[in-house]
């Protein structure tokens, strides 16, 4: 039998019953130093921003002198990035679905104006004014989500449009006038809740800083430990595949935009505490700053890849650079210059570590 050559379909499968049933296992070839680093970074993409953050803190600790390395200054950096950090959390949600949201900061400023106007000028109790701003944030997010899923606009265009719409509404409602901090203190101190702080030694942790950390921790849990979070990643990875695999992609997308809108409204409340007043002209570039934090945090603009914690580290890296360069006496324009290169280098590193396969 074994001497006759195989001719029919039955013959060529005849030896299958003897096939190996063990799970395959191989010795791994030594990768070398660079290869090993590349591999570890591929498996843990958040390491890159963490390393950059620690390295930049160390470098500025040396360059900018001891004033940089004080608990006070480090906690001040946390305060300074808290608002952009919260916006970056909302931005991450959208970018994970392969979208982009240019309207995050506009939603935030609009909601801070709405809650401030209601509380200060119309005498609405502060808690109700805040709840109304939350509902407004969710509604603004729903509008973005509706434009993206129902009207089928690309997220860039939809949110470019709503950015302008929300900014104009904000100027109309506020009359382009700021609401003064003293007025807020008088009638609705609750609006400034997140400006309060607890002192630990010379460090001052504001409630706004704690809110930022809480937002990231909750979103990390939702994205990694719940089915909904896995669906967000799947939609960003390949929307059509997710749809065929039985995920209600459009509904999930609308929920993502609504959640992002709600987080923007939270940022609005926190921003009143941080700034101390409500200015319709503030945070005009907040959308781009939030995208910067997300990109430096190693989250792919093409969706489906990256960890939300990266955005937190990305925001902190920007804060550390700005603070360190300022304390080192470097002109503001070179801060902007440095942030620009950070973005380019972050994405270049990201491309490099993507080249390995796990």
């Amino acid at each position, binding site marked *: 039998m074994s001497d006759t050559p195989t001719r029919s379909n039955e013959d060529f499968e005849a030896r299958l019953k003897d096939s190996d049933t063990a799970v395959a296992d191989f010795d791994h070839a030594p990768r070398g130093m660079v290869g090993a680093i590349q591999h570890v970074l591929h498996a843990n993409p958040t390491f890159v921003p963490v390393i950059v953050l620690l390295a930049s803190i160390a470098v500025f600790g040396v360059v900018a002198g001891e004033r940089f390395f004080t608990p006070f200054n480090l906690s001040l950096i946390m305060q300074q990035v808290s608002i952009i950090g919260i916006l970056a959390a909302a931005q991450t949600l959208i970018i994970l679905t392969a979208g982009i949201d240019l309207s995050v900061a506009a939603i935030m400023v609009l909601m801070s104006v709405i809650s401030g106007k209601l509380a200060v000028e119309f005498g609405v109790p502060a808690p109700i004014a805040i709840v109304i701003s939350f509902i407004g944030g969710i509604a603004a997010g729903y509008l973005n989500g509706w434009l993206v899923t129902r009207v089928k606009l690309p997220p860039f265009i939809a949110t470019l449009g709503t950015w302008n719409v929300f900014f104009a509404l904000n100027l109309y409602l506020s009359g382009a006038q700021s609401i003064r901090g003293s007025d807020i203190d008088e009638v609705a101190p609750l609006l400034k809740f997140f400006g309060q702080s607890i002192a630990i030694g010379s460090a001052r942790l504001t409630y706004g800083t704690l809110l930022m950390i809480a937002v990231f921790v909750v979103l990390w849990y939702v994205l990694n430990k*719940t089915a909904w979070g896995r669906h967000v*990643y799947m939609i960003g990875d390949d929307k059509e595949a997710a749809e065929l695999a039985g995920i209600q992609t459009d509904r999930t997308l609308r929920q993502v935009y609504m959640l992002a809108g709600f987080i923007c409204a939270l940022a609005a409340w926190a921003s009143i505490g941080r700034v101390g007043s409500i200015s319709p002209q503030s945070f005009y570039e907040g959308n781009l700053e939030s995208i910067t934090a997300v990109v430096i945090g190693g989250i792919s603009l093409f969706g489906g890849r990256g960890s939300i914690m990266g955005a937190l580290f990305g925001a902190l890296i920007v804060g550390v650079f700005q603070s360190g360069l300022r304390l080192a006496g470097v002109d503001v324009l070179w801060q902007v210059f440095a942030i620009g290169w950070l973005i380019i280098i972050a994405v270049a590193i990201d491309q490099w570590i993507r080249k390995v396969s796990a």
Partner: protein
Amino acid sequence: MTEPLLKARGLVKRYGRVTALDHADFDLMPGEILAVIGDNGAGKSSLIKAISGATLPDEGTITLDGREVSYASPLQAREAGIECVYQTLALSPALSITDNMFCGRELRKPGLLGKWFGMLDQKAMEKFAREKLSELGLMTIQNINQPVETLSGGQRQGVAVARAAAFGSKVIILDEPTAALGVKESRKVLDLIQDVRGRGTPVVLISHNMPHVFEVADRIHIHRLGRRLCVVDPKSISMSDAVALMTGAMRPDDIAAA
């Protein structure tokens, strides 16, 4: 005569000026393996998409278990018990094998954590995924949590087939399930198809592999130019006649005459 479990009548689907389905009929009997064969572009995949809810046909009716159904999304078809392996596989490359297997029907942890916080039961899902892959003989996958993009084409197809086989309750549709698989894995898929029929679940198999089709199919649906040309019995027709029918070299009447 028994009623078909899944029945379609007069399905029409047009994409602009291209007619993919031209008044196509389809019958799937309970507990059978029905093969669908046809030339490239005959409309096999369009037919499958229409009955699995991936597209909404322009005209025609679909009946499942005697009730007329209309699926707005693949999810609804899945909830009705129709599971499909698409040619594109519908897998998310950056996510793990486990995540892909449970896409849309994840297991939650028992008790408070699962109910109130929606926490996923990662361990149970990994165990299940590993079992299903082993059943298919996919022993070359070492790590159940590796991203699907790191798998070979055949392994990916194995994951998609394992997913459908694990969850399909009423009908399982396989669009070219063995196209990228090796000899051993193809054999396992064919065994699995027969297993599934053994459990009483009918299977629709779309394939260009005539030996596979003739080995497992109870009936063969020949699709040509967007409609059902005829249904033949693999025991009473030769492979070459089936190919002649599907390419138009022979007409169904010729068989009756022969």
